[in-house]
């Protein structure tokens, strides 16, 4: 089974919730009771069309204000794939939600209102999806019905967006433009008769065709140990299994491996998923492995292949997305959670702040506030085993935890 996670980004009134509602409606994913609720509420509000946004706007506060204020998850499936959409709000102040949504997604949909074209917000949405290295970005030029399905307008917006693309850091990101009307359903699931000049795929066709192998290709194998399994029963007296999820590539029985931080070498003896043995642990599977030699491995350690070591260091520089109302300042201490490993970290320096709208950097920065993105250097109390984010999307990322409130206050992408 294939599961594809998609993030959405758009400004207020770009019709994001409507687009999601439309996808659900056209893939027949809305159940009759949900549809009934939408019809009832749309009628009460006096609309002469179905307000699909009601399918996703979950919280009372949101329904009252008619806006989306947090990440919601929406599920639908086709014969080919299961989809999870992270519906993230598009206001300026909610960068943190967009970063959160993009972090778990392999594809992203950026909405543009065809009447307004590329606006400051669009730069931000693109910047974040590029920073987070989301593999596939769909630029959905929405509300085409309100510009008479004009090919000229579509091309104008495409050209404007292309100037943004030239500035991006992650150049290999796939980008696809699609003219749509979420309200009327053009080119979302079904091909539109109103855009004879557009020969590309519909939004859903594009998602259906994304290649799993390509999308999850995120570097070499890394096996962070989550849990040590020692049953101490008669049948499994000497069993010592290392439980965890495989990131990046694959690990196979017989592979020569190194355990970090001890740097002790061994070989993979067995790979279990539940009570069955396998030759190879594929990426993203939660397995339990045993080693030929009795070596000391505990939670937070990492098993990697010989000759393919990550960087082992007590210091790193990272781009961080700050998510808390308390400021980040040099000298502050946080817990860095890198995968399942936790260490204490001190902010050495804020090197510069990055304006997420491609308007450059600020070098004279004393502190970071909510939604700021910046390059920061950290010193750690113990070494961690990391790769650069651009080489390894999972082993190059971490979260920052406030030592007083225990809240997750930031996310980082190691350089």
């Amino acid at each position, binding site marked *: 089974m294939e599961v594809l996670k998609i993030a959405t980004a758009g400004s207020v009134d770009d019709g994001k919730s409507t687009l999601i509602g439309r996808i659900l409606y056209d893939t027949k994913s809305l*159940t009759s009771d949900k549809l009934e609720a939408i019809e009832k509420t749309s009628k009460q509000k006096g609309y002469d069309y179905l307000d699909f946004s009601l399918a996703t706007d979950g919280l009372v506060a949101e329904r009252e204000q008619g806006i989306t204020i947090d990440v919601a998850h929406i599920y639908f499936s086709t014969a080919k794939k299961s989809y999870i959409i992270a519906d993230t709000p598009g206001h300026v102040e909610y960068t943190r939600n967009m970063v959160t949504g993009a972090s*778990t997604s392999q594809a992203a949909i950026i909405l543009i209102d065809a009447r307004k074209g590329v606006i400051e917000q669009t730069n931000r949405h693109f910047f974040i999806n590029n920073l987070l290295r989301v593999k596939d970005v769909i630029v959905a030029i929405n509300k085409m019905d309100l510009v008479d399905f004009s090919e000229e307008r579509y091309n104008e917006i495409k050209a404007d967006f292309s100037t943004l693309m030239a500035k991006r850091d992650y150049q290999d990101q796939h980008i696809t433009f699609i003219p749509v009307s979420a309200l009327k359903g053009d080119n979302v699931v079904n091909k539109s008769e109103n855009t004879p000049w557009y020969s590309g795929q519909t939004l859903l066709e594009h998602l259906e065709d994304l290649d799993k192998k390509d999308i999850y290709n995120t570097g070499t194998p890394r096996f962070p140990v989550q849990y040590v399994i020692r049953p101490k029963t008669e049948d499994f007296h000497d069993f010592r299994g290392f439980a965890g999820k495989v990131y990046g590539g694959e690990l196979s029985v017989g592979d020569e491996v190194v355990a970090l931080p001890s740097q002790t070498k061994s070989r993979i003896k067995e790979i279990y998923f539940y009570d069955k043995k*396998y030759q190879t*642990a594929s990426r993203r599977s*939660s*397995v339990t492995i045993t080693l030929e030699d009795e070596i000391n491995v505990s939670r937070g350690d990492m098993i990697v292949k010989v000759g393919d070591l990550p960087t082992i260091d007590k210091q790193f520089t990272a781009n961080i997305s700050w998510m808390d109302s308390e400021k980040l300042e040099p000298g502050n201490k946080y817990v860095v959670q890198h995968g399942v490993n936790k260490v204490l970290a001190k902010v050495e320096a804020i090197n510069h702040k990055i304006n997420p709208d491609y308007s450059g950097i600020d070098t004279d920065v004393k502190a970071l506030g909510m939604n700021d993105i910046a390059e920061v250097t950290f010193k750690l109390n113990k070494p961690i085993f990391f790769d650069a984010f651009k080489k390894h999307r999972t082993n190059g990322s971490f979260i920052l935890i406030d030592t007083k409130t*225990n*809240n997750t206050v930031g996310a980082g992408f190691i350089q």
Partner: protein
Amino acid sequence: MKDTSHINPLESEAIYIIREVAAQFEKPVLLFSGGKDSITLVRLAQKAFWPAKIPFPLMHIDTGHNFPETIEFRDKLVKELGLELIVRNVQDSIDQGKVKEESGRYSSRNSLQTTTLLDAIEEFKFDACIGGARRDEEKARAKERIFSVRDDFGQWDEKKQRPELFDMLNGQIELGQNVRCFPISNWTELDVWSYIEKEKIEIPSIYFAHKRKIFLRDGLIWSHSDYVYQEEDEEVIERMVRFRTVGDMSCTAAVFSDAADIASVVQEIRDSSISERGARIDDKRSEAAMEKRKQQGYF
């Protein structure tokens, strides 16, 4: 088989989450209702720690109005797997005067469970409660985190939720706080049923079509039972029905069905056009029903 690429990514994700709970918390517990979602969680927990035993107990908050089939099933499962089961009763909370039994046409003990649950969390000092809630069940659930921090009063503040990035789960809490953990957050109803079919997991008999005395109200099928309030003019009839979700008898509606085995149930869900919570009477009370219950500490 040679490699593990055929394994459902949702299953790997759930196992990863369950292992994180066991590793990050001192006293986790799995909240077990006897419903299909919590039964699925038990299987996933078995897989996560095999060949070792599940390293935490199960806890059932018993409303006293459960389907007898569910209780029978619960006891059998616990015995077979050699698990530790804790049961706390809503009746005790009522007797102690902590909650008041509802009365009238829509009376249910469902919302009373919250008090009993919070008391039990305090009694055992549980710092993490694993639950089978899924985001596809309901709109307010769609915003729930995988690790959802509750304050001393067990309450959920949707504005203070921690962002969850990549698959890193932050389980750090202060004394007195606890975390609700949802390993199958990203599963849909169909995912759960398909998994039960594939894994050949046993589930209580009420999930399959059976003859039952029922009555109709507001377009929903209610069980005829001592626990369910019934008007005199509400006529009792006998029909083939099954349950899609199993809660308290007073808040769970049945569906007409002939699906007598798992394959036909899966097929029925595939074809079905009513969402699962459409059969939960407690959500029909108002559009914001679930969100309000959650703020009060409901699971």
